[in-house]
């Protein structure tokens, strides 16, 4: 692997969720440790599962991995970091100031930006705190999904710039009151990140056109903020000879090769590694050690028996049940990369096809919706919440209205505050709640951003809910809040999207648990891109299909009230007809 040659101290893996960052980061850390280096593996992903990969509980402190000499790991838990921060601020005044005042402070510090900033604060320490990381020759970071990663990495630059300006109490970096004290540390973190002698960034992607487009965008964004020496890893590539005897495998191979050929110039210019699809799930040490070498694995012999196609409902049948209510909000949730956007489009098209008015919208920062729904249909309207765009619009709106009467200095300060990390959360949330209201009259189908972002979005909704309840509670008027609408299964159906693989199913179960804590009960699960539903003949695909059965069983019996199985298609589901096929095309043939 090129990305593991002459590795600098810090190694970052970034890419859309589901491309295999965690596995590759773990495998790289193991390989470096096996080569005699002392390695620290860090997960900053809100849905961290490094502990699960090694079968050890890790948590928010450096923990030695017993099964791998010289390897330690650390999970940064954003929620835990935020709680610790809250305790630090609120602790000293608890019992000193009145209780409702203390509660008010805590609520202010319970928002999305506190969580993000607190997590970032820990991340910074690892890049700069020599005492904490002194013994380690390499620190391998398995980072959060792309959009989140970019912000995380962009923050130190923005903050240093802000602190340089020294505007004192104009600070909208609010939640981190102690920030000023660590000015030098933040600056050092920026320098460490942008220095190719110390930091290597590895983009991880799959050989899918949408994923590669996103990788190209990430490459550009990170290059723009100084991380220009990047490597590219194409993960999970189907070996070309698998296509010899299997139509589906041949179609996948052809699609992958086409996607690789059409990669952007910028990506092609990066040092590139390719990792073949393995016939096993990447859990446990033995599997990990096989990931980065392409030594043939014994399991993939020619005599793999056919895998029975699971008897599961189609997406179309779920849509029948959704359609029965005549209107409502349908939200597809799940880790990035599981196909929420495509399935949201499929659900929307299937509803519109049945004659219902449908508004399809996406808040995924990496939306490919326009590309996916490459066609028009009566009753269907399509929109997109582009976080960047709505943030800009929100900024302009605030400046034009609230800032209209201000003088030049006042305007400059308002602009400064509008550059804060939380402005985006608010702007996205506002667009989101506006669209939710439409669901009283028609169907609104939303895909959402990756897990962490989705939860932050819901958290913002929750804060708003408490706000409205407090204000309206006094007037005695009848009211509903966006949160109440989300919690009512008559009005809102949450579809959890996952893949029939160990980690995605566990992540989806975690997401479901989080939603339940917010009082939201997922209505159904959708298992996407299932090979088992395709009855493949290629030995490698059959091995993968067989591995899926256990996961499908787990979804059916442990996790989902109802679920649908969506097969992996030979062609990418682009356009109305193929999306209709995707919804109807199911294991009904069993």
């Amino acid at each position: 692997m090129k990305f593991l040659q002459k590795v600098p101290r810090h190694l970052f893996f970034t890419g859309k969720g589901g491309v295999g960052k965690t596995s590759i980061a773990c495998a790289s850390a193991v390989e470096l440790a096996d080569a005699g280096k002392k390695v620290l593996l860090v997960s900053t992903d809100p849905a961290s599962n490094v502990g699960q990969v090694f079968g050890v509980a890790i948590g928010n402190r450096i923990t030695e991995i017993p099964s791998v000499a010289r390897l330690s790991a650390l999970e940064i838990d954003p929620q835990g970091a935020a709680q610790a921060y809250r305790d630090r601020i609120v602790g000293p005044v608890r019992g000193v100031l009145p209780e409702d005042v203390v509660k008010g402070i805590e609520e202010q510090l319970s928002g999305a930006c506190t969580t993000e900033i607190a997590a970032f604060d820990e991340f910074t320490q690892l890049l700069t705190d020599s005492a904490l990381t002194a013994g380690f020759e390499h620190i391998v970071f398995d980072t959060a999904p792309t959009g989140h990663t970019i912000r995380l990495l962009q923050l130190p630059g923005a903050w240093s710039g802000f602190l340089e300006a020294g505007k004192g109490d104009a600070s909208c970096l609010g939640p981190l009151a102690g920030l000023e004290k660590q000015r030098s540390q933040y600056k050092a973190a920026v320098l460490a990140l942008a220095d190719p002698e110390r930091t290597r960034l590895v983009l991880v992607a799959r050989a899918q056109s949408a994923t590669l487009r996103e990788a190209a965008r990430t490459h550009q964004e990170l290059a723009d903020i100084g991380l220009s020496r990047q490597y590219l890893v194409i993960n999970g590539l189907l070996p070309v000879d698998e296509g010899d005897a299997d139509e589906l495998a041949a179609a996948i191979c052809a699609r992958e090769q086409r996607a690789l050929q059409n990669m952007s110039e910028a990506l092609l210019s990066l040092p590139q590694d390719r990792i073949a699809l393995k016939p096993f799930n990447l859990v446990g040490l033995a599997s990990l050690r096989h990931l980065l070498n392409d030594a043939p694995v014994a399991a993939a012999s020619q005599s793999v028996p056919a895998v029975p196609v699971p008897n599961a409902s189609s997406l179309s049948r779920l849509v029948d049940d959704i359609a029965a209510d005549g209107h409502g909000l349908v939200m597809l949730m799940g880790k990035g990369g599981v196909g929420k956007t495509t399935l949201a489009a499929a659900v929307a098209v299937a509803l519109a096809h049945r004659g219902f008015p449908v508004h399809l919208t996406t808040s995924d920062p990496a939306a490919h919706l326009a590309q996916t729904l490459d066609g028009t249909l009566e009753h269907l309207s399509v929109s997109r919440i582009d976080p960047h765009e709505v943030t800009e619009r929100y900024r302009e709106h605030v400046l034009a209205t609230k800032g209209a009467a201000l003088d030049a200095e006042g305007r400059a300060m308002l602009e400064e505050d509008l550059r804060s990390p939380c402005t985006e959360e608010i702007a996205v949330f506002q667009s989101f709640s506006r669209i939710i209201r439409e669901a009283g009259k028609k169907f609104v189908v939303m895909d959402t951003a990756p897990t962490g972002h989705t939860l932050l979005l819901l958290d913002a909704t929750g804060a708003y809910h408490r706000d409205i309840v407090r204000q309206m509670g006094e007037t005695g008027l009848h009211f509903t809040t966006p949160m109440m609408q989300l919690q009512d299964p008559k009005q809102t159906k949450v579809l959890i999207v996952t893949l029939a693989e160990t980690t995605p199913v566990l992540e989806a179960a975690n997401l479901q648990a989080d939603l339940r804590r917010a009082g939201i009960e997922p209505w159904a699960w959708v298992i996407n891109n299932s090979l088992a539903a395709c009855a493949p003949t290629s030995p490698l695909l059959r091995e993968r299909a067989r591995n899926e059965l256990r996961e499908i069983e787990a979804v059916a019996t442990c996790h989902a009230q109802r679920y649908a199985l969506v097969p992996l298609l030979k062609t990418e589901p682009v356009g109305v007809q193929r999306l209709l096929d995707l919804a109807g095309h199911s294991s009904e043939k069993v």
Partner: protein
Amino acid sequence: MKNIQIFDPAMCCNTGVCGVEVDQSLVTFAADVEWAKQQGAQIERFNLSQQPMAFAENAIVKGLLERTGQTALPVTLVDGQLSLAGRYPTRDDLVRWAGLAATTSPAPAATPCCSGGRCC
């Protein structure tokens, strides 16, 4: 020069732009403070959610919080004496307290607000 201290309600930034609704009086006041400082006024702001100890350590502010709760905020002290509670000072107030030369000021703060912006 008199020392003006303002004790803000809990919010994550002084213009309140992080709230679900931007509070005009906060935006205006933040600009007024910036303007007055440029004219040489000594003004300090304390945010309840960032510097709660400043509230706990000031007897006047702490007493107000105990008697009337958060609705007492914002509180303005001029040279340590209570001058205003429950709303933000206008630019004219700042001019008077700081002893600045009066100028043509833009529209003063609209309806006084004490709940502050919601934090994000």
